[in-house]
């Protein structure tokens, strides 16, 4: 420093250089802090899942023996057992069937309804909207038994459609709510222009309107999948054998000789995979769409 003060004009330059360096360091530090923070969070997030995956490739002897971070005796036997036994893999097919049914029904009925809520004022609209939302608030535990009786009495017990309809209870409400947010963001002038251009309503709705709220539909589908796929209580209560979801079948791993940990872990891992697929499909909508049209 003393050297540079001697040369008059340069005095300011090293100073600014120094603060610039400090600045760059500060900037790097804060970015680094963020990166470290996020990395730690993600590691903690992945660790329990990793442990499950790790276990699914082990034999029960190894699991119950000493703790190992990698399968020493790598085996696919657990997966093989699940994927070759229909009473196991049908569980996945059942789950995916009623989830797909539920998503289709929910979207089909929610799209026009959300459109009505975003565009029209009609008698009782606010009350109806709130009533729909109350169904998202209804605890499945409250409805489990009445659903059981209802579907038994009309002969739908142990069918996929029974679970799909039961999940509509909360999913339809959610779909209407999310889609309404997106649709309100589309200017009403678009509708008017389309009518002036001579579009018939359904033509306009399907060809122009739906593509406009693509992100919204993607995000809605994500939430519908999520809440239907992870639900256990209703799905278990409304099925016995024909439509039994994988979540219920998993309890079979507890036998007389204790729990078959390896098999349980493999079954668990296989329930995570469809979710990864869904995330992959909607990842580009997440940044835009997850604010649910409400920013």
């Amino acid at each position: 420093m003393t050297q540079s003060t001697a040369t008059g004009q340069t005095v300011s330059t090293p100073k600014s250089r120094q603060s610039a360096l400090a600045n760059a360091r500060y900037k790097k530090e804060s970015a680094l802090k963020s990166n470290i923070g996020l990395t730690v969070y993600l590691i903690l997030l992945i660790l329990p899942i990793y442990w499950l995956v790790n276990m699914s490739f082990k034999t029960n002897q190894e699991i119950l023996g000493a703790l190992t971070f990698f399968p020493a005796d790598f085996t696919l036997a657990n997966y093989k057992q699940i994927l070759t036994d229909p009473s196991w893999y049908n569980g996945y097919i059942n789950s995916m069937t009623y989830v797909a049914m539920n998503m289709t029904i929910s979207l089909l009925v929610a799209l026009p309804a959300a459109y009505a809520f975003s565009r029209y004022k009609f008698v009782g609209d606010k009350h109806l909207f709130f009533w729909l939302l109350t169904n998202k608030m209804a605890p499945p535990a409250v409805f489990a038994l009445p659903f059981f009786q209802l579907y038994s009495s009309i002969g739908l017990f142990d069918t996929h459609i029974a679970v799909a309809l039961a999940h509509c209870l909360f999913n339809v409400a959610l779909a209407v709510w999310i889609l309404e947010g997106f649709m309100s963001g589309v200017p009403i002038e678009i509708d008017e222009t389309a009518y002036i251009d001579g579009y018939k309503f359904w033509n306009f709705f399907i060809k122009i309107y739906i593509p406009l709220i693509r992100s919204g539909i993607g995000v809605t589908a994500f939430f519908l999948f999520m809440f239907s796929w992870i639900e256990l209580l209703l799905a278990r209560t409304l099925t016995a054998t024909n439509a039994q979801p994988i979540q219920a079948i998993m309890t079979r791993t507890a036998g007389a000789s204790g729990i078959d940990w390896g098999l349980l872990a493999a079954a668990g891992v296989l329930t995570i995979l469809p979710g990864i697929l869904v995330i992959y499909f909607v990842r580009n909508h997440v940044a835009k769409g997850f604010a649910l049209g409400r920013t």
Partner: protein
Amino acid sequence: MAQITLNSLAHSYSANPQGPEDYAIREMQHVWEQGGAYALLGPSGCGKSTLLNIISGLLQPSNGEILFDDIRVNDLKPEQRNIAQVFQFPVVYDTMTVFDNLAFPLRNIGVPEHKVKSKVYEVAEVLELTEQLKRKAKGLSADQKQKVSMGRGLVRDDVSAILFDEPLTVIDPQLKWKLRRKLKQIHKQFNTTMVYVTHDQLEASTFADKIALMYEGQIVQFGTPRELFESPRHTFVGYFIGSPGMNFIRPELTSRGLEFEGQLMPVNEEMIEKIRKLGTSNIKLGIRPEFVHVWTEANDDAFEVTIGDIEDLGTYRIMSFMFGSIPMKARLHEDQKVPVKNARVSFPEQWLKVYVDEYLLELTHE
């Protein structure tokens, strides 16, 4: 307050620029003097906003340096450069009141509260925001919001410079005029360096003492509005400034001098000599419509031309005519007699500008 020097500055948005067309800012040398009111004028996409963001530090230039009073600030962040910038679209802090919005930049640098108050009231007074001070910024109209944005730029009186990035885009014409006057007044009052980006020549010339005209990432001319009008340094300046822009023809260099479609142009010998030495074929002659002389009777220096439309614009008229195969325009006073069908026009030598490779050719001695 500071003098801002751009030293061999250039910027490219691509990581690996191949040629000059990859540069948003081509290498330039420029000085904004302390206390000046400047306009940075140019069509959209010419790089003026890029240049502004480089000065404020929101953008790091790929080459060259920026000096504030001889201090290199390249590596300083915008918050360390002590500079104010007003953006094209209003940015207000929704949850704060107008008062808190205006006080925000002052409070951030720890100005004592009583000073904050007097300064905010002073700026609010100038911008006519006093009545809105207690309101939440969220509920303001777009032009009020923009006034708040501008106010935040004006409250700090120690800033190196205030940069405006087309700040009046969202304001309606009447208020626009008023605000421009206000800015000018503020400039006189505080003597802060101001750089004002716009694509509107009228806005530039009413605000600025000196205009920097940008074209394709370069400042092609820096001068007073009058200089830009009377002697455009580049064909683009001629074309962009003035309404309508400069007339251009492409003459040929022959043994007689500069000829256009067989007619000899009034360019003096010395200039002709200079052009011959340069040995280029890209020669243009330009003359502003205001300086085209229209004769009603026969004249030796005048050329015969065919008249097209006459556009009456109130205090003046624009006459279109064909000079040979080239359409040109001339500006006539409202009381000037308009010739019918055929007219004679002449180009006074002092206003007929010679452009070689698009740049103005001048005789160096006076």
